[in-house]
């Protein structure tokens, strides 16, 4: 079984985000990056399949500049077999459909049994690449899964709905699954894994290498501007020393009749 896992590199959860000069993105020059949280769970799910069936191959793919190689190495250290980085200046302003088309070009060439990805990326929060990619590959999909049971040529998954409800669906392979956080317990790369990862293949490809022209990935969606949300009424901020704040808090609770 061959599994492709799509990993996006996003700003670290604790990075201080500042807007870039032209207002269309954040300043990304001096911040830390990490693998998108949702994608870690997708990778773990693939690695568990490999744990069960050593003949399985796990290929990780990331579209992004050279900094994503570090995330790909981490994934190799966790147990993935092979990594593919795709980058091209033509992808700098790529929209979700362009990303999906680029991944599709690779996935078709690799002919995978299963594509695993995150439900949503923590930077753009688009949550749309998975269903797009499935359509381009001509395979069925399910989004936001919290469990998957492989059984011969099909997989039974639980999709998370609202309020704790789960929808159970069955899909034939090959298929695409987008993963919700909390699906499993994500492993860490062992020291041995990290050493081995240095020898595993990491291929860097351009758009041309995957058979796409720049025109094929011209974006239809453009981020015109990002900005700090306008401050509305907002909260009354309690100020003063720690004790002042605590006393004011007690005052509020008393006003509510709860003390």
């Amino acid at each position: 079984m061959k599994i492709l896992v799509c990993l996006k590199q996003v700003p670290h959860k604790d990075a201080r985000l500042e807007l870039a000069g032209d207002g269309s993105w954040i300043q990304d020059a001096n911040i830390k990056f990490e693998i998108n949280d949702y994608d870690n769970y997708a990778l773990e799910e693939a690695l568990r399949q490999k744990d069960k069936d050593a003949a399985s191959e796990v290929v990780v793919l990331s579209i992004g500049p050279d900094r994503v190689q570090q995330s790909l190495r981490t994934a190799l250290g966790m147990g993935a077999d092979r990594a593919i980085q795709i980058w091209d200046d033509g992808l700098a302003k790529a929209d979700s459909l362009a990303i999906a088309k680029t991944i599709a070009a690779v996935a078709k060439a690799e002919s995978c049994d299963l594509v695993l990805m995150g439900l949503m990326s923590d930077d753009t929060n688009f949550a749309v690449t998975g269903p797009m990619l499935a359509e381009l590959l001509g395979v069925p999909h399910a989004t936001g899964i919290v469990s998957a049971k492989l059984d011969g040529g099909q997989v039974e998954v639980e999709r998370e709905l609202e309020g704790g409800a789960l929808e159970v669906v069955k899909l034939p392979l090959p298929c695409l699954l987008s993963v919700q956080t909390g699906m499993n317990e994500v492993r860490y790369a062992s020291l041995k894994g990290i050493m081995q990862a240095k020898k595993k293949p990491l291929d860097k490809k351009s758009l041309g290498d995957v058979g796409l022209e720049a025109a094929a990935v011209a974006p239809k969606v453009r981020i015109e501007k990002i900005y700090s949300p306008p401050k509305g009424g907002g909260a009354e901020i309690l100020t003063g020393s720690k004790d002042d704040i605590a006393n004011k808090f007690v005052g509020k609770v008393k006003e509510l009749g709860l003390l």
Partner: protein
Amino acid sequence: MAKTLIVGEIQKGGLREATLELVTLARKLGGEITSLVVGSGVLALAEQLAKKGGGRVLVADDASLANYTSDGHARAIRRAIDTEKPDLVLISNTPSGWDVAGKVAAALDCGIATDVVRIEQDGSDLVFVRRMFNAKFDARLRVSGSPRIATVQPGASEAYTGSEAGSVVELDGVGGDSRTKFVEVRVAPAGGHDLTKAEIIVSGGRGLQKPENFDAVLKPLVEALGAQMGASRPVVDAGWLPHEYQVGSSGQVVSPKLYVAVGISGAIQHLVGMKSSNFIVAINKDPDAPIFEVADVGIVGDLFEIVPALAAAVKSAKGG
């Protein structure tokens, strides 16, 4: 706006409130409105939507559409787009909406803006406003080509309450096979930790850093206030607390008299679960955290200093 297609959603046998929110949004943009209702035996719901502002309502009614499947619903939506040729397609950003919308966009090679909270008209163009970075920033998107698809955040508009004269048209050619097979919907058994009846809830988020801190730091405040403990999703994902503590769109929806959010940033999926609380206090070290926008009272600072001080002050106010 020349023509908008609203994709309706059926929930528990009725029209979902979010569908009527799309009606409000479409009417604000002006132009012609046409809607789609997908299911089995849903003619009456289509008629209902027609009377509630859905305009000309297409109904894709087929036994194979009884339960949501991405193949079945994508086929119906594409059929509706084919016959109506809308300029804009609105879909609610719900578990079925986000499952199908991207599939349709890729099939038609058209642009999509997801989880939109507002659509502004700018001359002949549209600007799609949405959150990014888990609500830390707002973004304005431009989408080229036609049709444009937008998935819309439930609750972003008021539901339309007017009554109108609409019409219903049956769509043919909407039945067929689906590769994904619906099996069932499982509802999690109610846990022992019911937050919906709590008067006071103190919830901890990823800012608490370690599972031990829920006992060491949060619990003294919970006990001093006589509150129940809640949590954000990452806390539950990491296994620090069971799922029945989770507040939010995929956890419990609560509205206590007092909700204290500790080390929680305020992503929309958390806010959905607690924003209708009577009084909200947020404690966060980041003065720009989106949680402060829904809070009544905010405390900007290190929770590891603030929370023990609050617990001590509440205790002494109680005379203990």
